[in-house]
């Protein structure tokens, strides 16, 4: 009986471990390759960190640096050269500006909308909400072309605005927050009205603080999606390298004379991924709270 119980359990765990490995192995590869030398990467040797022998890197000297400068341990070289080759801090900065602006404007619009949809009675409320649900079904790629044409006509291509404006109204955000607000008792809103708050004060001073866990969940969805987005920036940022977001920046490492140098490329990817991982770990507990609370999975 006990043995059978264990077999049943281990079967489930085995499956979960395989699933976890599928997700984690690329990360392992990424970290490992960002530390090893080119030879070790190509011969698939050296384990996680490689031998870390001091050597002179030919691609580096090709870029015009002296041999002295180009002689160091591989892990150091990979990160150093990644930062030399592309303005990674600038890309990170762009990523930060774009994702934070998108998130803040999304909240600014989604909170009053979802408050109205959840708590105010007006004609056509159900219709408006069903339109919100309908908009959830529209894939971004379907409307990418008209959006691009609109932005181009407005002269906004190659600006931050082009990266931000199309995402400022998040129907997912409205939907998520509306579901959360439905669970907030009406009495709390009535109490605020009795105290003399207007509807906008209620949204910002009562609903917003109450909704922090749900907002955090939404923040992760939104920030991750737009930090990692490659498709849209690739369309609207056509030439100006100063506006590159991190995913566009990584693309810099492909092509050209040193196209197959994986070490610095992986180092840049690690640099771009770390902020998200740190943010997720910090917010993890409340994030899970937020998701389970709104019944979204």
């Amino acid at each position: 009986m006990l043995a059978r119980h264990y077999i049943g359990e281990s079967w489930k765990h085995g499956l979960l471990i395989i699933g976890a490995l599928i997700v984690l192995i690329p990360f392992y590869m990424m970290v490992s390759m960002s530390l090893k030398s080119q030879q070790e990467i190509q011969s698939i040797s050296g384990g996680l960190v490689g031998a870390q022998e001091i050597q002179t890197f030919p691609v580096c000297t090709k870029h015009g640096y002296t041999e002295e400068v180009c002689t160091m341990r591989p892990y150091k070289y990979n990160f150093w050269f990644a930062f030399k080759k592309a303005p990674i801090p600038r890309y990170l900065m762009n990523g930060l500006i774009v994702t934070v602006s998108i998130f803040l404007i999304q909240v600014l619009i989604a909170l009053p909308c979802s408050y109205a949809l959840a708590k105010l009675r007006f004609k056509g409320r159900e219709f408006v909400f069903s339109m919100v649900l309908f908009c959830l079904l529209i894939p971004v790629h379907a409307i990418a072309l008209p959006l691009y044409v609109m932005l181009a006509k407005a002269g906004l291509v190659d600006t931050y605005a082009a990266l931000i404006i199309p995402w400022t109204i998040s129907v997912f955000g409205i939907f998520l927050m509306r579901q959360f607000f439905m669970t907030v008792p009406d009495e709390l809103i009535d109490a605020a009205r009795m105290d003399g708050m207007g509807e906008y004060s209620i949204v910002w001073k009562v609903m917003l603080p109450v909704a922090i866990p749900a907002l955090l969940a939404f923040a992760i969805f939104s920030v991750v999606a737009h930090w990692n987005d490659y498709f849209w920036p690739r369309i609207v940022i056509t030439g100006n390298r100063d506006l590159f977001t991190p995913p566009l920046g990584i693309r810099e490492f492909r092509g050209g004379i040193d196209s197959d140098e994986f070490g610095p490329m992986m180092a840049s990817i690690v640099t771009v991924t770390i902020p998200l991982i740190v943010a997720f770990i910090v917010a993890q507990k409340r994030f899970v709270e937020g998701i389970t609370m709104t019944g979204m999975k």
Partner: protein
Amino acid sequence: MGTISLKNINKSFGSTEVLKQLSLDIQDGEFLTLVGPSGCGKSTLLKIIAGLEQQNSGDVIIDDKNVNSTRASKRDLAMVFQSYALYPHLTVRKNLETPLKLRDYSFVERLPLIGNFVPSRKEKKKSIDDLVFKTSETLKITELLDRKPGQLSGGQRQRAALGRAMVREPVAFLMDEPLSNLDAALRVHMRSELSELHNSLKTTFIYVTHDQAEALTMSTRMAVMIDGELLQLDTPSEVYNNPSSLRVAEFVGSPKINTFAAQISPDGSVEFMGIKLERKFNTNSQKALVAVRPEHLEITKDSNKPAFEATVSYRENLGSDIFYHVQVDQSDFKIIVRGSPQAGLISNGETVRISLSHAEAMLFETSGERIR
């Protein structure tokens, strides 16, 4: 001042009529209870008074001013909610300050940071602090001021919610079943505290409850509402002893009042279950209903008294009282009789004789109206 009068209030949600032509005058300083079974429209009525809900027709008049189009916050009323509705992210102190700040501060003074530099704010802040302190002393919640609602027990939250209503010194307090989330012992305790609070504040209280015990114990007058209509408005003892209709008699009083079919002779004398009432009634009907409260029936051993026989089917021993549920004539017709513990317990299945202990029987038409 705190007189509130309602004139011909109608309210419906979609096709359901919640309030029908309801009129009500509330005097200054009175503790008025709106009582009725759940769904009778009493909370809706309270919300209409508060301004949180708009009536379809009719007038709400506070201190001789028609407030139909006045916003909730400008009506100078304070409300205590069933779930307390304290702001969960603010400390008790901030919860108490909020209504005062919203009322007293100007728009500029309310702004974060910038507000601090407006000179008039400092003075106002001081008077707010004083009021909050005074209120917290009255309610004995001073040591809880820096906690958040989540860290308080039910009774403490109740006090904090009362405090938030009190700080504004409103013309009237509206309370929507404020005690129903408390446990039984605390509820009884808070009943007496609320009555004391009412005595010391001398402000109008409008109190909504479905619990007739709360209505009977606390109120100066109680308004019995059933199905969106105001059936009786009177002092608790008058409502209990002299209900205007059978529905009121059945709703008020626990256990429920007993009703019997009765015959009326042409001379006006009334007979039910073989018992003849002493009083004669002036009515044209031949059939009526006699209603007798459980405490006005007694189990008698005196064979000379007019009585009827019944079988005890269930016994409720409350310590101070014992209620016997008895079955009459082997039928499904059951009535409840109060017995005193001194008389000794009667076990289930025993047959007893039941008679009227006082001449306290009320007569109603079969349609429910009172025959006096």
